């Protein structure tokens, strides 16, 4: 249904019809699949890289200047690429790894490559905000660096890490929509194919609605989780 021929009200009403959602549901499934896989990769790699960045820095617990600078530079380079260019660049990589340069799995590589550096920086920031005194207290008790990282630093900053992950997850959702253009499917693909190319505005409204719902759900869960932990620790 196009706004050119129907009134806004009719289009909006039709956006929630079975006809539209029969097309949209499988696409939402694809989107969630991409989001979840990308999120897992981003989470694991991002936390590892974030830790390395934080502990090898000049004020970190084991300063390693070359590693800190090298990794920092790579991450900055990756972050300065617009996401759409990242997708174009990683397509050949996907072909090498998966044998095909399109589809859901190929785009996961692009999404992870684009979101991991951002999440790693957020984790680094969260770890750097931790009071130095707590780390010194652990050191003064004779704790090894590994135990400081996993026994003290990570548990202390979990609420901040949850908030960082929420930001990253929302970035992944919006980027997934973009990746739709490159054969990854998902709601972004629907929005472009039906909403943009064929002026099916009911479809467009439905995709926007579903994206808003996804982002809201993620943000709400993130907020609730970090608040619950802070409450449990009596920090708020």
């Amino acid at each position, binding site marked *: 249904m196009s706004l050119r021929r129907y009134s806004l009200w009719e289009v909006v009403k039709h956006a929630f019809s079975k006809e539209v959602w029969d097309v949209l549901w499988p696409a939402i499934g694809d989107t969630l699949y991409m989001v979840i896989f990308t999120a897992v990769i981003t989470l694991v790699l991002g936390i590892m890289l974030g830790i390395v960045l934080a502990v090898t820095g000049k004020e970190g617990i084991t300063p390693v200047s070359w590693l800190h600078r090298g990794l920092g530079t790579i991450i900055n380079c990756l972050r300065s690429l617009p996401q759409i260019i990242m997708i174009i660049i990683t397509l050949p990589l996907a072909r090498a790894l998966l044998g095909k340069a399109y589809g859901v799995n190929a785009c996961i590589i692009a999404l992870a490559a684009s979101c991991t550096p951002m999440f790693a920086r957020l984790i680094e920031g969260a770890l750097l905000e931790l009071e130095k005194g707590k780390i010194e207290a652990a*050191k*003064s*008790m004779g*704790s090894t660096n590994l135990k400081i990282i996993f*026994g*003290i630093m990570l548990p202390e900053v979990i609420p901040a890490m949850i908030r960082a992950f929420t930001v990253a997850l929302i970035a992944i959702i919006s980027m997934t929509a973009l990746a739709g253009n490159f054969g990854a499917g998902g709601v972004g693909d629907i929005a472009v194919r039906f909403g943009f190319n064929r002026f099916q505005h009911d479809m467009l409204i439905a995709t926007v609605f579903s994206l808003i719902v996804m982002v809201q759900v993620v943000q709400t869960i993130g907020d609730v989780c970090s608040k619950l932990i802070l409450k449990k620790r009596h920090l708020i």
Partner: protein
Amino acid sequence: MSSYIRTENLYKSFRTKGNNVQVLKGINLEVQKGDIYGVVGFSGAGKSTLVRCINRLEEPDSGKVFIGETEITALSKRELATKRRKIGMIFQNFNLFDAKTVFENIAYPLELEKAKKKDIQKRVDELLELVGLTEKKHAYPGQLSGGQKQRVGIARALANNPDVLLSDEATSALDPQSTLAILDLLRKINKELGLTIILITHELEVVKYLCNNVAVIEDGIIVEEGEVRNIFLNPNSNTGKVFLKVSKEFQKNEFVSGGEGI
């Protein structure tokens, strides 16, 4: 009598934006076993840097630190980590782990020693009793008052039966009543456990109340040291004199204003 904690010609400087700031300029400290030794001085004199050099939270530029027979400054990283378990430290802002309960905070140093679960339980209960916080065992630091937090800090520092306790302005963030309670607790552990305590403070009253000996640090060197009584009856150093004057001034004011005030 030979001293238990000893520093020889300790130097330390910090490099900030190109220029080098000499903070310690040849510190020779001698503390007897079982003593409560005060270190006083103005802000920026280098007191914190000195104690932090003793457990090598700061690496001294040159000079040596001994505790008992061990030359701290000669230890490898691994040896230092082990030795640090016998050197407790408490801080002005407590530095408790907010993610852990009181129990878990005190258990942390014991877990580093790979103690058995049952032994940890027993030891933590003992320590909680010692510092009088048994009923707060499962509370988080966020639920405690400043005085209670410092008690946890002390219990945590004592967990591995150290023979030295370094205290960097442990009572500076506390109200007078909690200060007194913490000082009494420190005296108790000094008596009962035979700990040697080095206590940094701004407050002359604290030194008078608790310490046997005191060193006055001025601009990175010890300008005078000796028995607390002698030093503050008749100070020679500038810092000592100012400290005494300020202390007297406060007492006078208290006298004049009588029951008023807080």
